[in-house]
């Protein structure tokens, strides 16, 4: 009986047609698992190969003494920052106090260049006439010719100077508002003697005034700038040595391979002589058991003392020079810069001491644990690539940038998206609901590259102009130096996150049983009270999950941060407190997008980028799982 209902059909490999169809659909569905697995596999494969390669690189960095010299490089870099801030302040102050004089000196140079360029022939004539005149000062004909040449020159100079473009000569506009000086300069330059080339008395006077007024500052600045000369010289010497050692070591490591390659190639050569020559060439390559790092880097061990004394010298001179820096300024910018220099000097000295101490701990054969090199990736503070010195792969600046931007975006997005969800779901009229919901969902459709473009072209400039308004200077980070910075990217990402959080939040609010709010209203609570005291607390798990998923979307966003965050690979300076938001930063997503196209497969750099991708993947997976857990565990109804 049951036979009637049994399906007939051909079987293939023991499965009938229906089974095959089912299998086909199932296979397609299972593809999603396969894809997830493949993504993991490919990221992990490249990333896993990063660590041993990275470890070898760091080992070499230590053995060649580059690690030791690296301390000196950092010290000098830090010192250079102080020097350049001082110099900047000096020129600011110079412009503020002696702008006209500086303008006169600069413009006189411009005028001289113009005269020399155009009056080349006349100057030649003048020189010849002068030579003749000096040889025979009594010849009236020659004297007349000399006089004529001088007059010619003056006429030419007057004409040329009159035809000069003021903007071109005074390209920084330092003489703007000093028309009298400009006219006087033009007049004075007519008398300039091109043969001697000395500045005219008028210009010399301006120079002297400038020098007299700024002498104290100038002396202090020069003293500060030369305080680190010993350390700089030592650094340059050691850098050259370490680079040489590294070059030799790298050559040494590839010696065996090169030899083998030459021998292999020699077999294919046509004549016996060439073959013999090639073999002889190969024999010349010395293959050492191990590279004599101890011997080569001995000099570094001996330079500890020199390093310490150079550092001490720098400290003493720096303190003395800083004390001599003036404290009254005409320029506000100069005053701020100098205050900054004075404040940072003790920190710098402290850091210098630490660095010298740390440097003296260096030993070429100190073991570098695998753990150590791994930590150097996750907590390394530098990401430097394509460097002739050493490439560093440190995640910290990137992850800091990513997190900072995401947190700002989230902080901005949360009130807006949750507020909008509450409004649309509970407070708005029917009519408003019909257009607000699709409109907010439409924001999701704006491509991220378009938002990034908007950030570059409009928001960046807008924010900077806003930050220049004096009344707003209390806002942290204002006035901004950069157009492309953390807050700009954060605001755009916030707009991107709003639709995600809004939609999920609204769903969560929708899931709150009607009876809850009805009960609350029946007890006499107002609409707003019902929303804040009953509906939102009930839906809190869904709202939390929505926020987490929004975070996932922000942290994985690429184009906006690539275009707008400023792409400066450095840990933002948290010393400014909340002002940190006005600084540029780089992100994990941005670095992959920026550098992936330029690296060749299999290099350390390539693998480092995959590892960053893996970190990103892990973070977003964790956020996803956490959101699902929250919904499951705390979920109501």
């Amino acid at each position, binding site marked *: 009986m049951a036979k009637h209902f049994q*399906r007939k059909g051909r079987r293939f490999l023991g499965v009938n047609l229906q089974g095959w*169809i089912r299998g086909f*659909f199932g296979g*397609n*569905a*299972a593809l*999603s*698992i396969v*894809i*997830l697995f*493949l*993504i993991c596999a*490919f*990221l992990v494969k*490249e990333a896993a190969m990063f660590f041993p390669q990275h470890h070898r690189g760091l080992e070499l960095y230590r053995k060649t003494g580059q690690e030791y010299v690296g301390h000196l490089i950092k010290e000098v870099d830090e010192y250079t920052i102080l020097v350049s801030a001082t110099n900047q302040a000096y020129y600011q102050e110079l412009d503020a106090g002696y702008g006209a004089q500086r303008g006169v000196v600069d413009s006189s140079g411009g005028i001289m260049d113009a005269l020399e360029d155009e009056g080349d022939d006349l100057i030649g004539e003048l020189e010849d006439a002068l030579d003749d005149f000096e040889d025979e000062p009594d010849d009236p004909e020659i004297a007349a010719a000399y006089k004529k040449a001088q007059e010619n020159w003056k006429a030419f100079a007057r004409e040329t100077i009159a035809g000069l473009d003021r903007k071109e000569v005074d390209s920084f506009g330092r003489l703007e508002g000093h028309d009298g000086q400009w006219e006087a300069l033009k007049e004075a330059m007519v008398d300039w003697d091109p043969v001697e080339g000395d500045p005219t008395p008028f210009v010399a006077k301006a120079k002297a005034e400038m020098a007299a007024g700024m002498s104290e500052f100038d002396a202090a600045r020069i003293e500060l700038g030369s305080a680190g000369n010993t350390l700089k010289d030592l650094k340059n010497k050691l850098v050259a040595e370490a680079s040489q050692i590294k070059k030799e070591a790298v050559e040494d490591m590839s010696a065996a391979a090169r030899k083998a390659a030459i021998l292999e190639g020699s077999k294919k050569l046509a004549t016996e002589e060439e073959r013999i020559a090639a073999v002889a060439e190969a024999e010349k390559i010395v293959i050492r058991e191990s590279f004599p790092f101890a011997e080569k880097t001995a000099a570094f061990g001996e330079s500890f003392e020199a390093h310490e004394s150079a550092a001490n010298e720098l400290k003493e001179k720096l303190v003395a020079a800083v004390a001599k820096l003036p404290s009254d300024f005409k320029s506000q910018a100069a005053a701020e810069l100098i205050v900054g220099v004075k404040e940072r000097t003790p920190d710098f000295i402290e850091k210098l001491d630490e660095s010298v101490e740390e440097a003296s701990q260096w030993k070429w054969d100190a073991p570098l644990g695998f753990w150590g090199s791994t930590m150097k990736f996750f907590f390394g503070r530098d990401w430097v690539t394509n460097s002739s010195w050493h490439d560093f792969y440190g995640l910290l600046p990137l992850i800091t940038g990513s997190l900072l931007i995401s947190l700002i975006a989230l902080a901005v997005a949360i*009130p*807006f*998206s949750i*507020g*909008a969800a509450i*409004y649309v779901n509970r*407070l*708005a009229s029917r009519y408003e609901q019909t257009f607000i919901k699709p409109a*907010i*969902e*439409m*924001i999701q*459709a*704006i*491509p*991220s*590259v*378009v938002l*990034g*473009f*908007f950030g*570059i072209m*409009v928001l960046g400039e807008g924010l900077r102009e806003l930050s220049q308004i004096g009344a707003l200077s209390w806002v942290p980070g204002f006035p901004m130096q950069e157009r492309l910075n953390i807050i700009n990217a954060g605001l755009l990402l916030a*707009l991107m996150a*709003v639709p995600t959080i809004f939609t999920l939040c609204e769903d969560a609010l929708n899931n709150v049983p009607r009876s809850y709010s009805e009960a609350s209203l029946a007890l006499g609570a107002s*609409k707003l009270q019902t929303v*804040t005291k009953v509906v939102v607390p009930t839906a809190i798990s869904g709202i939390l999950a929505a926020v987490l*998923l929004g975070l996932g979307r922000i*942290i*994985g966003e*690429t*184009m906006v941060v*690539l*275009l707008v965050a400023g792409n400066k690979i450095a840990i933002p300076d948290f010393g400014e407190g909340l002002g940190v938001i006005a600084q540029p930063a780089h992100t994990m*997503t941005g670095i*992959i997008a920026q550098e*992936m196209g330029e690296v060749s497969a299999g290099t350390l750099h390539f693998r480092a*980028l995959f590892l960053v991708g893996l970190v*990103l*993947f892990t973070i*977003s*997976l964790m956020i*996803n*799982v956490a959101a*699902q857990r929250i919904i499951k565990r705390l979920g109501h109804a």
Partner: protein
Amino acid sequence: MPEETPSTNPFQATSSKRKVKDRIGTVIFACFTYFVLACALFIFGKITYDGAPVLFTSEAPFINTKFFTESPQTLVEFTNGAGELIRMDQTDFTVFKEENPDVTINDEHTFSYSGGGIAGPLVGTALLVLVCMVVSLFIGVAAAIYLSEYAKKGKLVSAIRLAIMNLAGVPSIVYGLFGFAFFCLAPWFPVFTYEVNAETTIGAFKIPLTDGYLSFQGWGNSLLAGGLTLAVMALPVIIAACEESLKAVPGGFREASLALGATRWQCIRTAVLPYAAPGILTASVLGVTRVAGETAPIMFTAAVADKAKMPWQDAQGSGVFWFSDMLTQSVQALPYHIYTVSARLPAHEAINDMRYGSVFVFLILVVGFAMTSVVLRARYRNKLKW
């Protein structure tokens, strides 16, 4: 002092203080909402305001046809003897110089990719989306049919659902990395070619009657690799949307068809799919919206900044070889073009037309698709009520 008697009337109006509070709270929430909308509107407005003049002209045919029919090329800017600022494309400039040998040209500047039009990027994006949709719709619909029609609760199904959910949260740049490593670099995908590449791993097989080979040498940076990367990315969205539309078909349809003796597949084909078709269409439009706006996944899998010819013009050979060559070409793409002109060129006024023009076109396209999907979904939900 008379004691205040507590109100006994339960229907008395609530105190006005509370009403005011209520009102203020509502207004604050409304402000949040409308501020978001205002921001979005401002972005649309600004881009339209600056972008529309590039696309439309005051004379017939009122549309800047050149912008849609030419590919990007170098823009030349110079001042002529009269001090007028003139901008023209590189090709026009060459002709102009030949025709007017005596004309003075001062302050000549060139800007890459800023002249011409956006035909190449538009076509490239269309092809990428096409490849993506063909693949992801095929897999997505099949997967959704399995999940909605065949699957019973079990470990496999929950694993599939978990995988889909997690795939949806993977950052787009990670898809890009995966696509780069899997589709571009891995040397195992087959191509039909006349020239066998040295990288071929499994080997090349001569195809009878032709000069060509079937070679497993990988796809490299190509239309196919980019399209498939996008397809992988679109999959979670498409599966979810298709499943929703399949689930919306009432169970009675299936039961009736099965009761009449249809096999499972017959039931799906005749009683489920036709009624789910509009929903699947919506799903595909949704998928297009999701992938067309993406830049990160195609940055190193498919896109190039500069390409003179369309992919089909550039492809060599005939028949299957031509097709294979076309699919393994790298293409220009609109989002990548926008990235190039806005981030990799210096800020200069001469580039702004190209910038705003392409951004405006792109925004209109993507938002147009998004609106279509919203409208379709709304209509579909209203229409089909069983």
